C-alpha cells in the first residue's frame, strides 16, 4: 500500500522497474482486465494512478484484499502512468501478471 511521501528517488525506481516489466514481463492495462486478473488470481501486483475515481480505487483494493495481492498507488495520474508504461494513452490501473526480470 502507499507509503507516506514518495521521494523522487523511489519514484524513479518504480518507473525503472515498470519499464523492465513492460519489456520482459507480462501485464494487463485497464480496469476490466485488472479485475479479470484478480478474479483468476493471475495478478501479482496492481498499480493504480492517483486520479483513479475513488469508488473504482476502493473496488480494486477490495478485490486485491480478497486475493491477497499487493496494490501500489502510483505517484502520478493516469497520463503519467501511461507514459511510465511507454504507452501513448492514459492508464488508470494496471496489473502485473508476470514480473519477468524484475524482482519485487
Amino acid at each position: 500500500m502507499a507509503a507516506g511521501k514518495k521521494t523522487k528517488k523511489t519514484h524513479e525506481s518504480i518507473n525503472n522497474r515498470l519499464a523492465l516489466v513492460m519489456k520482459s514481463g507480462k501485464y494487463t492495462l485497464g480496469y476490466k482486465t485488472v479485475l479479470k486478473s484478480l478474479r483468476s488470481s493471475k495478478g501479482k501486483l496492481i498499480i493504480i494512478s492517483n486520479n483513479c475515481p475513488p469508488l473504482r480505487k476502493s473496488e480494486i483494493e477490495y478485490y486485491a484484499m480478497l486475493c491477497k495481492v499487493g496494490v501500489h498507488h502510483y505517484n502520478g495520474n493516469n497520463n503519467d502512468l501511461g507514459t511510465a508504461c511507454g504507452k501513448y494513452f492514459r492508464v488508470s490501473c494496471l496489473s502485473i501478471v508476470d514480473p519477468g526480470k524484475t524482482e519485487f
Partner: protein
Amino acid sequence: MVTSMASIFQIEARAILEGLKLAWMRGFRQVEVESDNALLINTIRNNFATNSNTIERFCARARIKAAVAMVKFLKPNKAVIVLQGRYAGRKAVIVKSFDDGTRDRPYGHCLVAGIKKYPSKVILKDSAKKTAKKSRVKCFVKLVNYQHLMPTRYTLDVDLKDTVTVDALQTKDKKVATCKTIKQRLEERFKTGKNRWFFTKLRF
C-alpha cells in the same frame, strides 16, 4: 536437549523448508534463499539429483513452497452481491464455480443461490405466528457471469451442493423444487441468527 539426529544436509534442507514456510505465512511469495551449504544449493538448483529419499522430499517441498501462487476467492460458499439483471443488489452464495466456462458459456461464471425477498425485521413483540411469517425467505438460483458479481469477504457455509445443480435450471418445476429446498435451508439458518449480514437487505 537432543530431539533427533540427522545429517547436516538434511538439517540444512529442513531449515530452508522452515524458513520458506515462515515467509509463506507472512505473505512473501517470491523469496531469495541464501545458504552456506554448496551441496544443498546445487541439489535444489539441479532439480534434486539427490542420493536420498528424505532429502529429496525436503527439497521438493521447499521448491513447491517457493513457487508463486495467488489466492482464489470465487469459491463455493462465498457470499457475493449480484450486480446486474433482475436480482441486482441481492446477496447470493456461490454454489459452484466454472472458472473456465463451459461450451455454452465460454466465460467464467458460477451457479449462485440467492435471496429474492429478504426476511423482514423480527421484533420481540411479535407473536409466534408473526415471527414465522416475517422470517420467510424467497430464493433464486441463477448462473451468473463473474463480471456481474461483487465478491465480499463474507462466507455462508450452507450445504447446497447436493440440491443445487446446473440441471436444476433446465425446467421450471425442477427450479421451483430447488428453490424450495434452498428456502428451507436459508430460513433455518436465518432463525439461528448466524450470518446476519447475509440476511439484511443491502441499502442502495
